[in-house]
């Protein structure tokens, strides 16, 4: 019974979302990117690390549709493999941030009092550091690698999720069903996980969708300054950084990876906008 109702709620959102053509296209693009990331070895025409000094900086050809970079590596293949790194950075770091944020926000909101006060003051400290400076410092201190960049981005973006969650929990905890749960002597943990979190997570969905986009963006910036994915593994931001050396003669080398970042972030933002309208049609103007 409960499952059915949950499904119908999802279906309702989906029906709303379907009306918004732009959001559907964005969702399609994201699914496509996901598939590209999964099937990269089958889609890429060449191995991403294969160097061919004869073809260094070569223009587009039938063999290499987007040309070759300064080490003679196939740019298209590198872009395809790069999808993996960028999506990982976007999705995993948001998962980390959202998980911590949800936990912190629901505990703070549910218990209130000094727990709430303490966690909010901690978040104040957190948010006093500009987010990108925090991520860069964390990534640099932890040492440059994909894993550490993901951790840095994840930790750097917690406060936003925690605050939204807390605000949402504050309204949910006054609901009758929470009182009912308390009346049948359910434990706090049970109440938080079974009643509070599922019912207050709605407003976070939009934030999470857009968060994936902004983490892809910030992740590419980390790789660009050498604090993210390390060579020879391809990543869009790192490819742009690499292309800087031949920017004067071959500007297209930097153009393609930037476009890839832009398209994926744009897709996340458009889907986020669409979801916001679908979840709460009143907000639409």
């Amino acid at each position, binding site marked *: 019974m409960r499952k059915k109702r949950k499904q119908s709620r999802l279906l309702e959102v989906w029906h709303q979302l379907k009306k918004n053509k732009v959001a559907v296209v964005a969702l399609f693009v994201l699914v496509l990117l996901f598939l590209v990331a999964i099937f990269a070895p089958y889609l890429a025409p060449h191995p991403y690390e294969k160097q061919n000094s004869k073809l260094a900086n070569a223009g587009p050809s039938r063999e290499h549709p987007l040309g070759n970079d300064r080490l003679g590596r196939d740019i298209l293949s590198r872009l395809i493999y790069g999808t993996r790194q960028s999506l990982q950075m976007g999705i995993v770091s948001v998962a980390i941030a959202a998980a911590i944020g949800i936990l912190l926000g629901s505990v703070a909101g549910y218990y209130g009092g000094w727990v709430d006060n303490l966690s909010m003051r901690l978040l*104040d400290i957190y948010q*006093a550091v500009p987010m*990108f400076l925090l991520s860069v*410092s964390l990534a640099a*201190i932890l040492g440059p690698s994909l894993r550490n960049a993901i951790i840095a981005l994840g930790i750097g973006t917690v406060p936003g999720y925690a605050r939204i969650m807390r605000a949402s929990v504050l309204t949910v905890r006054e609901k009758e069903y929470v009182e009912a749960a308390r009346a049948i002597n359910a434990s706090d943990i049970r109440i938080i996980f079974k009643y509070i979190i599922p019912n207050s997570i709605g407003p976070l969905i939009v934030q999470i969708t857009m968060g994936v986009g902004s983490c892809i963006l910030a992740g590419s910036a980390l790789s660009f300054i050498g604090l993210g994915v390390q060579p020879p593994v391809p990543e869009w931001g790192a490819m742009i950084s690499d292309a800087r050396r031949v920017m004067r003669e071959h*500007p297209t080398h*930097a153009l393609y990876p930037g476009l890839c970042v*832009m398209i994926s972030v744009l897709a996340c*933002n*458009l889907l986020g906008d669409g979801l916001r309208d679908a979840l709460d049609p009143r907000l639409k103007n």
Partner: protein
Amino acid sequence: MVRFIIKRLLMLIPVMLGISLVVLILIDVTPGDPARMMIGAQATQEQVEALREELGLNDPLPIRYGRFIWQLLHGDLGTSLMTKRPVATEMWERFPYTLTLVVLGTTLSVILGIPIGIYAAVHQRTWKDNTAIFLSLISVSMPSFWFALLLIRFFGVYLGWLPISGVDDWKGWVLPSGAMALGLTALIARQMRSDMLEVLRQDYITTARAKGLTEGRVVYRHALKNAMIPVIMVIGGIFGVMLGGSLITEVIYSIPGLGQYIMTGLYNRDYPVIQSGVLIVSALFAVIILIVDVIFALVDPRIRSQYTRKEKRKAGRQLAKETKTVETS
């Protein structure tokens, strides 16, 4: 008002203490020995040990933290391990560059973003509005460092109008501030648009129109002031994004500002630089937010009156108390 500012400044102290503690702990738990970095790989273990002792790296964490705070109170931010110069002096020299960059970038995004937002709102549901929204979405989704490179390639290399790096004259500032402003212009425009649409639906706008005012007067005199308030809030946060963004922009355009300084410090594990850099930039950010909040209070009569009313209420209470004491005595 003064009380409000002082209270906010006092609230900053625990926040800053927290930040410096966290940075210190982070540097402490990560591998890599700053002393080893300083004197190079060929130094003997004894030399490294001696240097560690000299730098006070062997002291327990609370002592180092206390020492850092003590020095901070005396305006001493430590000495850079790389350049051997006081961090405070070096940061002070670099501060004007970052400030100029951030102020220019913010001004540019405000000057562009607000009119675009108004324009889009006034032309809601037309192709003009759609184009503006679409362009702003694209600009938000673009990596700013990528845009910066494209600007260099086009205006610096292809057209040859502007220098590709360095800020020796005003021309050098054009591209960096443009690159910084792009995404934030879009952000402001979006915020302005949605606030404007919200305000234009209010009753007092209908009244203004019913009075027979021209549409321009309605929008600019009656709607704009009310729609501006949330936009000012956004501008405060934007400074934070700008300060973060200055890290990359300054490196790309070789601007000798705080961002570049911190980046160099991070690459070299120059921990006094990292610690003070994060702290000072955060303090700067906090002060800017405070200034924005004060402006906010000054602009919005509703918030302004809260303060005066509070003062008046207090004055009233004071008066009541005094009369009471007079009566009883």
